[in-house]
C-alpha cells in the first residue's frame, strides 16, 4: 500500500500533502495537551511496534498474505489524537529512513494509512461500544470491527486518489473491485490481530489501553475477559465482508475480462509487495470459468470468504486442541 513517487500525479500528491499536514497539525494540537514527557517515549514505542507488525505477513487465503496497517489498533491503544501522530510518524519514517513509499507521495500515504485508518477505526470503535455492554469483550469486538472497516475504507481512499490523479490506463471499476475485494479479506486479518493484541494487553495492563480507560473499565472487569469474544466477532466480521463484496463488487465491475483482472491482482494485491511468503503473487480469488463479470467477482469473493472461514475454523480447532490447558 505504500504509494511510490509518480504513481499519482504531482498536483494531487501536493494537495494530499496539504490535507495530511493540516490533519497532522490538528492532531498535534490535541495530542500536545495530553502528551506529557513520560508518554512521548511510549508513543514512540507504539510507533515502533506498529512498524514491526507491518513488516510481518500473515496468510489470508491461497498463498495470499497481508500485513497489518495498525491505525485502528493505535487509536484504541493511545487514543485518536496521539494515534494520528503516531501513525504519521510511522509512515514518515518508512519513507525517509527506509525509502518505503515515495517522498512526494508522503501526503497520500499518511492519509491512507495514518489519518483515515485512525479516524475510521476510532469512530467505528466508539460507535460499536455505545451499542454494546461496557466490558472487555466489547472492547475486543469494537476494536476488531474498527480495524476491519479502517482497512476497507483506506483501500477505497486509494481508489479515489487513483481516480483523481492516477496516470490512467486501468479502468477505474476494475481497480475498485480488486481493492475492495482484497481488502475486505485482509481486513479480517487486521481485525483478528487487533483483537488479539488488545486482549493480551487488557489482560495484563488495562491501564495501557486508552479505549478501555475512556469507557471506565477497571482491572477487575477486565479479568473476566471472555475468550469466545474474538471468535464471535470473527463471524460478524465475515458476515459484513460478505455483504460488502456482494453489494459493492457488482457495481464496480463493468467490463473486466480475465486477463485484466489478473493484471490488477498482480499489481495490487498486498502479497506482491512483501517478501517472505510471496511464493504465489497471483491472488487466485477469481473463480475460473464464471462468465458475467459482476457475478464473477461476487462468486470469487464468496469463495474467498468461505476459504478464509474454513482455514479459520481449522485453525481455531487446532488451536483449542493444542492450547496449553492448565487454566483451572
Amino acid at each position: 500500500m505504500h504509494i511510490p513517487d509518480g504513481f499519482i500525479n504531482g498536483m494531487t500528491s501536493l494537495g494530499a500533502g496539504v490535507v495530511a499536514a493540516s490533519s497532522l497539525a490538528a492532531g498535534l494540537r490535541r495530542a500536545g495537551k495530553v502528551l506529557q514527557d513520560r508518554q512521548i517515549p511510549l508513543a514512540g514505542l507504539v510507533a515502533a511496534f506498529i512498524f514491526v507488525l507491518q513488516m510481518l505477513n500473515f496468510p489470508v487465503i491461497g498463498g495470499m498474505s497481508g500485513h497489518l496497517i495498525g491505525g485502528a489498533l493505535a487509536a484504541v491503544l493511545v487514543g485518536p489524537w496521539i494515534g494520528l501522530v503516531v501513525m504519521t510518524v510511522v509512515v514518515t519514517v518508512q519513507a525517509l529512513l527506509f525509502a518505503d513509499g515515495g517522498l512526494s507521495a508522503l501526503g497520500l500515504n499518511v492519509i491512507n494509512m495514518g489519518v483515515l485508518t485512525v479516524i475510521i477505526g476510532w469512530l467505528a470503535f466508539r460507535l460499536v461500544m455505545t451499542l454494546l455492554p461496557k466490558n472487555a469483550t466489547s472492547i475486543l469486538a469494537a476494536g476488531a470491527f474498527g480495524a476491519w472497516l479502517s482497512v476497507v475504507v483506506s483501500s477505497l481512499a486509494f481508489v479515489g486518489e487513483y481516480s483523481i490523479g492516477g496516470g490512467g490506463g486501468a479502468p477505474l471499476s476494475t481497480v475498485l473491485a480488486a481493492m475492495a475485494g482484497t481488502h475486505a479479506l485482509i481486513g479480517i486479518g487486521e481485525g483478528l490481530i487487533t483483537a488479539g493484541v488488545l486482549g493480551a494487553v487488557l489482560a495484563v495492563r488495562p491501564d495501557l489501553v486508552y479505549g478501555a480507560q475512556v469507557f471506565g473499565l477497571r482491572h477487575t472487569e477486565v479479568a473476566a475477559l471472555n475468550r469466545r469474544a474474538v471468535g464471535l466477532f470473527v463471524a460478524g466480521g465475515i458476515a459484513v465482508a460478505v455483504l460488502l463484496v456482494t453489494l459493492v463488487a457488482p457495481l464496480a465491475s463493468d467490463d473486466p475480462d480475465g486477463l485484466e483482472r489478473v493484471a490488477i491482482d498482480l499489481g495490487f494485491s498486498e502479497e506482491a509487495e512483501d517478501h517472505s511468503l510471496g511464493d504465489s503473487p497471483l491472488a487466485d480469488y477469481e473463480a475460473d470459468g464464471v462468465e458475467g463479470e459482476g457475478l464473477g467477482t461476487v462468486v470469487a469473493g464468496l469463495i474467498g470468504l468461505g476459504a478464509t472461514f474454513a482455514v479459520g475454523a481449522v485453525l481455531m480447532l487446532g488451536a483449542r486442541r493444542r492450547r496449553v490447558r492448565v487454566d483451572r
Partner: protein
Amino acid sequence: MSIPALEVVSLSYHYPDGTEVLREAGFHIHPGERVALLGPNGAGKTTLVFHLNGIFRPETGSVQVAGLPVEDENLMEIRRRVGIVFQDPDDQLFMPTVRQDVAFGPANYGVEGDELRTRVSDALSAVGMLHVADRPPHHLSLGQRRRVAVATVLAMRPEIVVLDEPSSNLDPASRRELADILTALDITMLMVTHDLPYALELCPRALVMNDGSIIADGPTREVLSNRELMKANRLELPLGFDPNFDR
C-alpha cells in the same frame, strides 16, 4: 563404554559481526555426570551453551546428544532431552502467566490434562514459586524470574540440564535450595557458573574455558587448587575459602 550423554568435537563459531568466539572447543560428558563450566567473562560459555540444543549451528566441528547429531531431523528429540536454563531469565519467559510458561514445554510434547497440571505444580513447588503461578512473569523480581526459569526446564523432565549461571540473583537460601533440588535430580548436568564454592559443592568435575577453547578438564577440587591455572583464567576463590576443607 557408554555413549556420551553430550559430545562436543572441535566446535568453532563466530557471530555475524565477525567476532570469533569458539575455537575448536571439545569435551564430552557421560550420563549422570555433573560438570561445572568455568571461565572469565566473554570466554564463550553462553555461546557454547546455545550450541547444545541446536539454537546455534556449528561452523566446524559437531555436537552429539546421546549419539544423536544436532541436525534438523533430530531437533525436536534433542530439545526434549536437553533442557537449558538461560543466563538471562528474560530470555526464557514469554507467556502471559507463569503457569502457562511452565506448561509450554511439556505441552509442546503432547503432555496434557492432569499430567500437565501435576508437572506444572511439581516444578513450581520445587522452586517455591507456586504462589505466583497466575502472575505474568515479567512482573516478578529478577530472583523470582530466575526460579521460574528453572521450573520451566524442570517441567520438561529432560535427561540433561544445562544451567547458565543459575545461582546469580538468587538469595542465599534459594541458592542452597536450588543446590538441593539439583543434587536430588540425579540427571546429567552441565552448569556454567562464576561461583566457585557452588561449583565445588555441586559438580565433581570442572571444565575451564577461555577464549573459546576448553583449556582444562579435571576434578573440580584439583582445578580449583591449581594456582597458575586459576590465575591465568581470572578465577579466584573468595577470601578465606579453602577448596580442600573437608565437608
